[in-house]
């Protein structure tokens, strides 16, 4: 018993040492300025006084962009220094979530592929034609195998030669025709 409590203590210490500032509705207000998100953060100083840190503009960065799209969002300033970390969206109210989500969707613009119309390979490149929620897409992959990333069993990210990203949310949901085309590369 004693050992267990001791172990708990060391675990708690580890997270204390890390000093991660989690942002949530209790300490942070998210607002929109000129169409860009900003944040007002309440800080408690060591002597107990409270100050407000104001950021006219914040940048959001997914810590796990392939696994967790709405959790562990790093909030950064212009110089890419972390201001704080959002553990999950539910820590904020609806209005703030709306702002955050829209910003993330802008930065991580990723059309969802619904159908692969054609996939041809020549000269070491593969040429794709696909339908997506952003309409008809045409793009080129250099080294097809290396630019497809399977996440879990069902999800596939596609990276084209310009650094654009596309996602196939579910392989199972694809029609047979599309599946057969992409299957060779998985």
């Amino acid at each position, binding site marked *: 018993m004693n050992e267990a409590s001791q172990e708990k203590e060391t675990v708690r210490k580890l997270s204390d040492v890390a000093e991660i500032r989690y942002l949530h509705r209790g300490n942070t207000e998210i607002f929109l300025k000129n169409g860009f998100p900003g944040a007002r953060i309440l800080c408690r100083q060591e002597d107990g006084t409270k100050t407000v840190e104001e950021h006219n503009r914040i940048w959001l960065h997914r810590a796990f962009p392939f696994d967790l799209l709405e959790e562990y969002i790093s909030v950064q300033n212009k110089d890419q220094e972390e201001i704080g970390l959002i553990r999950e969206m539910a820590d904020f109210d609806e209005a703030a979530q709306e702002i955050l989500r829209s910003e993330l969707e802008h930065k*991580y613009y990723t059309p969802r592929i619904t159908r692969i119309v054609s996939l041809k390979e020549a000269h070491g490149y593969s040429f794709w034609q696909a339908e997506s929620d952003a309409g008809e897409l045409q793009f080129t992959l250099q080294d097809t195998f290396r630019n497809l990333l399977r996440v879990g069993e069902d999800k596939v990210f596609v990276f084209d*030669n310009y650094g654009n990203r596309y996602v196939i949310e579910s392989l199972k949901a694809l029609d047979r025709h599309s599946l057969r085309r992409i299957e060779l590369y998985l």
Partner: protein
Amino acid sequence: MDNCITRIPFNLDPDNEMISGQVEFFADGLRIIASGKEKWIPMEGVREFRCDVGVGSVALEVCRENGDHLICRGTMDYLAVFSAASKRMNRFLDGAVPTEEWKQYKKAVCPKCHRPYLPDSEICPRCTKKGGYLRRLWKMAKSSRGYIYLSVLIFIAVAALNLVLPYLNRVLVDDYIKADQLPEAGQYVLAVLMILLVTFAVRLLGIARSFVQVRAGTELIVVLRQTLFQKIEALSLSKVSQRTAGELMNRVTQDSNQLQDFFTSDVGGLIEQMLTLFSLGVVLFVYDWRLALMVLLPAPLVMLSHRLMWRYLGPRYRKQWWRGNRLYETLYDIFSGIRVVKAFGMEKKEMDRYDAVNLRETDVRIQNETYFAVISPITNFLMGVGEFFLLYYVGNQILDGTMTLGAMQQFSAYVAMIYGPLRWLSFMPRRLARTMTSLVRVFDVLDEQEDVADREDAVDQNIVGNIELDNVSFGYEDAKDVLRKVNLQIKPGEMIGIVGRSGAGKSTLINLVMRMYDPDDGAIRIDGTDLRDIAQQSLRSQIGAVLQETFLFAGTLLQNICYSKPDASYDEVVTAAKLAGVHSFAVKLPDGYNTLVGERGHTLSGGERQRVAIARALLHNPKILILDEATASLDTETEKDIQDALQKLIAGRTTIAIAHRLSTLRNASRLVVLDHGRVAEVGTHEELLAREGLYYELVMAQRQMSKMPGELETTEQLA
């Protein structure tokens, strides 16, 4: 209308919808045109244009005192366009005069097939003209053309002889073996001898052919590699560093090999097979057109089935190759990390990981072997179908007595021969595709613009050591300007220390002075002459550099010191080595200055390598000396020794030095503090400390760092 500074397209609206819009930049504002609407953003109060690079999209923004405003957004294909626009507009804000060139931007998509170009090029991987490239390669093959013509001649001869052989066989059978009366022994022997002679001639020509082919190919590859190598060396650092060393190696070796193969075996092969096919066709038709048709009818079918088979199997084999690759990578990964695996007791887990990859590879292998085992006999059978028809038809004719046994033999030989070229030709598209890839890649390098080329009237100049940076702005290919409006005057013999946080533009400034790149705006002058007017050879022969990464070429210590001056005397070498502190350790090595160093040789410590680099620079005896973090990777004591050596080198030369450790620059006559690409402060150590600006902050931060734990209290008391 055309007072427009620059004009760019974009393709995303604020709701993430794909649209097609355009932004026009004027001196007094920007006009954004999208979905039939126009929006005007006035230029008033604009401090900066920023290209904000996201992960799947990119945005162009203006920064004002009261915050940022979005101009437009686009997918990543627009990165180059947006970054060019933001750089140009920032330069415009700094007072640069817009040029005609600013109005243009690199197009992102091929106008023909509307697919994106390869990044940073205007090459469409789909539509590149293939004929043009082949013609250029042919031009390059000037020296080996004689051999190529010769090999074509040999191919023709071989094809002709191959046709004669079955005819001789027929004569042998019909006129002598199956003849009604016994032939004369002499004639019979003569016929056999003829066959022997022809066979021998074919073999002999075969040897000649391979000889000629090898010569032709080797000549071509030598020319090709030379041209490629010269081109790569002539390109500026920025163009070269866009590609990895491995990739460049690949282009010089692999791609040119591929082209050599094509020229030596494929072109010859193509000619041979076409000739054989054509002449056989003619012979067959002349002999009996019905027979010929019967043989040739299945031919298209055969070619088609062959192509279909490879279209189906090709990607599957590539998948197998890829999985095999993965297997190898996994194995390599596990073995090289074996200490970690054992330290965390993860043997079981790694075994499972390996098993999984192994199984995946085996799966696809079994599948492929099965496919192949089923498909290939079928195509082979199809190929033979024509022969069955033939057998039936010819058999009937022989029974009727309209055809002789020898004729049948000749005919079957021709039929067997005609399928060879057909099969070969069905592989041709694949080979051609592979060659084209190499060809495009080779010419991609050869067509690269030399952006830091010598002017025709470039002069050799004896440098005194005056350096002047006049309003210099520069940015690499990506979004931001690294240096903005840098002004600096350096007098001969001065030592300038360049200080600043990482990313402030210190190394870039040095690269510009060495003319690894040309400034986008403004000018750098040495003794009043623009750098671009001085021949590079002349310039570099008078600049010496000691860099953080000291590269030792494979060779002896002596060769490495002499690198900058191959004709140096032993006396000079020993003097330079002594001054740099190389001598003291060189004479302890069993092989002295002849010790092999570099990749495979004796491993020198960081400090020793650094000393070799200094000796190299000393021997070079440069007018201008550049030290880029020359002592950063050394421990304090070694650094002190090297500093002393450097001090001897610096005396009397114009020196520009970069160092993170500020104490290294204590001897500098002036310090230049860079901040975000601009000159923030200039002055001596004392002046800058007194100013309590950026330099003061940097010094204080370093003092904090280097404090010993015990010292803390005393210094705090002092503060």
